[in-house]
């Protein structure tokens, strides 16, 4: 096994020097932020997400409903006094359920994206930095796992383990880290030959320090963009497995599960069981996509100007 770039001993003086070297790297967060804020669609995305977050997490503080006890005598009531969005198939208030379901969906989506990004960044930077056999080995693992249909794995795992918020975060995250790993690995291959990385190495910087202190911060722009898409993808994945009846068991709710339940009444005209959750999914996914596009443009512009 060969390692392209062997480490040399680190010293306090060398660390200080490399920190200074890292400090001269052009981060320019203010420029990224300014460019992001200039993007109207990105702002719209941000506002949409904030609105959904407020609706889901602060809404229940204002709009009180019982989302624990079923009321079969009130099942599938149409929108009206007392139930602005009607009731669902077991009598839960649909508006309140939309809030509670949104909490679960957003929590899982953000959690899964975080797991995917952290794992993907570590995997990708290590593979990209060391290169050679290590890179080949690690990326073949990525290729192999990518060849397995994600939905199949989700269904398999969901039948093996009792679905819970934590379990879904881990499962979705462990399935989603592959794309960021590839992305980061490609970026790292480019970054590792930069002068500042060479300088740190010459000064005796060890691999972990180079990776976490110098490489990771410089791929963050790319990763943040990817993370927004990961969130959107996770929301859709939750919807998919809930549609298959393998989501979090009741009385917990999530938008995908609500949509799935509502689809059982497609031909009965109970639109309030379908549209609200469907629209909530669309808005949230759209918001993250817009945010992601905005970030990509902002980060890309930064990179362009750096050149």
């Amino acid at each position, binding site marked *: 096994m060969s390692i392209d770039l062997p480490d040399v001993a680190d010293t306090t003086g060398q660390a200080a020097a490399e920190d200074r070297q890292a400090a001269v790297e052009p981060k320019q967060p203010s420029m990224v932020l300014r460019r992001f804020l200039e993007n109207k669609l990105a702002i719209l995305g941000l506002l949409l997400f904030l609105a959904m977050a407020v609706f889901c997490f602060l809404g229940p503080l204002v709009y009180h409903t019982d989302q*624990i*006890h*079923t009321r*079969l*005598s009130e*099942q599938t009531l149409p929108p009206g006094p007392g139930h602005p969005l009607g009731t669902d*198939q*077991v*009598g839960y208030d649909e508006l309140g359920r939309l809030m509670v379901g949104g909490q679960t969906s957003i929590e899982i989506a953000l959690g899964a994206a975080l797991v995917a990004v952290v794992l993907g960044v570590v995997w990708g930077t290590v593979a990209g930095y060391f290169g050679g056999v290590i890179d080949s080995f690690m990326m073949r693992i990525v290729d192999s796992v990518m060849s397995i249909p994600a939905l199949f794995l989700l269904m398999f795992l969901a*039948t093996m383990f*009792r*679905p819970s918020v934590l379990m879904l975060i881990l499962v979705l995250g462990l399935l989603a880290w592959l794309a960021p790993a590839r992305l980061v690995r490609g970026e790292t291959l480019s970054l590792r030959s930069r002068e500042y990385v060479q300088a740190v190495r010459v000064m005796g910087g060890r691999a972990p320090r180079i990776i976490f202190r110098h490489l990771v911060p410089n791929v963050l722009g790319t990763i943040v963009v990817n993370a927004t898409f990961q969130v959107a993808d996770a929301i859709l994945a939750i919807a998919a497995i809930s549609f*298959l*009846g*393998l989501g979090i*068991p*009741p*009385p917990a709710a999530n938008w995908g599960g609500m949509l799935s*339940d509502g*689809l*059982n*009444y*497609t*031909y*009965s*005209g109970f639109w309030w069981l379908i549209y609200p959750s469907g629209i909530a999914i669309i808005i949230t996914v759209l918001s993250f996509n817009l945010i992601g596009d905005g970030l990509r443009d902002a980060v890309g512009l930064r990179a362009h100007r750096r050149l």
Partner: protein
Amino acid sequence: MLRLRTLPLVAAATAALVVATACTGQHAKPGPVGTPSEGGTATFAESAGSKPDYIFPMMTPIHQSIANIEQFNRLSYRSLYWIGKDDQPVIDPSLSLAKDAVYSKGDTSVSVTLNDYNWSDGKPVTTRDVEFWINLFRANKSAAAGYIPGEFPDNIKKFTAVNDKTFTLDLTGAYSPQWFNYNELAQIAPIPQHVWDKTSATSAIGNFDRSDTTAKQVYKFLDSQATNTSTYGKNPLWQTVDGPWILSEYRADGYSVFIPNKAYSGPNKPHLDKFIEQPFTSESTELNVIRSGKTIDYGYLPVQEVSQQNTLKNAGYTIAPWKSWGTNFTVLNFNQPTAGPLIKQLYIRQAMQSLVNQQAYVNGPLRGTGSVNAGPVEISNFVTSYDSNMTLPYNPQKATALLTAHGWTVTPNGTTTCASPGTGASQCGAGIAAGTKLQFNLEYSSGVVTLDQEMQAMKSDFSAAGISLNLNQAPFNTVLADAAPCKPGASKCTWQIINWGGGWIYGINPYPSGDQLFQSGAGSNYGGFSNPKSDALISAAVHTADPAALPAVANDLANQVPVLWMPAELYRISAVSNRLAGVNTKQSPILSLTPEDWQITK
């Protein structure tokens, strides 16, 4: 008896809905149009999430389902007596392999003569084939779902083949002829000894079944072949049948294609070229397909979409309710290490039953249909009413009182805990430590909307007495596999409460004496319920023709709560294409199919 995977749809009180018209006889209209023809393909919709996966006609508990027996296995392998004449749970002599059984010596001996049936390879069905089935069952009874200690084959003192067509069974005691016909003889399905009596794919045919040791090997071989579903369409074992259909194709999702047995010697020869069973993952998917075109000839209408009846009628379907002969329940596991000590306490089971709001389930998920079910036997000629002192209707106050009286600190909307451990009358009971929480894991089948709603409602209702249910859904076959009976003290026993959806139909054992489900040690006693008094009452129902014996069993089991009794439901609201002639809309009470009667109209 069979586990029922029901699509709990509009049930007994169908007067309020579409089924009302069906029940008044209008279900048969408009019926098939055109002239019946020979050939063609008819497609039957399997129940959502339920698929056949075991072809050998000797079921293990995990494979015993409607999908496997009544709607798969029985197409190719017929039993001595066919249960179901129109929609009544009685023997239909015209479809039975044997003539009426003759009892003698004070009902301690029975003689059976076979009708003239042949196997698909031209060989006759003989008493040797009956003996083969009995020998395999006897040697492997511990693995068989139909086994009940003390009953078949333990109660067979001697099998005698008088000749190729007649055999006698000398019994260990006197039995009710009705019970013996319905619950013992009707489950015997002759199997081709001249093809299957071997211990491996390459071994020669022998009389291996006549030794217990080699009979186990034969069973092991046949079971291994039956669990290897990828070979179903081409395995020569399954090509020798005495029923009207031969399985020609099988896919992992349960998609099955049957072709006619050209040598079928029964009364109704198949008219179709192919009979297909189509799987579905959900009811809504099935409805989408049935609405979208003509690919499903015999499907169903989910109860939540009952308003679509006219749409389907306009699309050329006849709507017909399908009522099963059975009972509905949720299974409690007496032998699960954690939940078992709780479930073994009668007062806890009675408290739980008092929290099952059956009427609300009927009014809600079942949309004002179905009926409250107090015990193991539906109100019928067998049991005309229940003793109200023995039944446990919805009464949350009673549930709370029962728990409080036995040393529990009841915490509504929380989790009730044991405050007074011990075995005294006012204490929690044996094996229950102080601080034990009254909580259970409840696993149920996914894909059935009404079951999902009932389980959610049950969780909600149970919280009134602080009984916590942790719900978990899984595909039907997974639930079925999980529900395997556990032995007392088994460490690997994980399931606590299970509902596979729809409970049980009294299929191959239509006399509802409860022996297969609730007698100690019975093969289909999934939860491991055991009570000497119940056993004695069941025994009386089995051995005597006393008309009071069966109601006594029903009342006792209603009060003992060996399972949680759930509302009676329809199996389906069938949607039968009007291009299909020959379908009896008075559908089989044990849910079997006779596609050999069907014809495509032109």
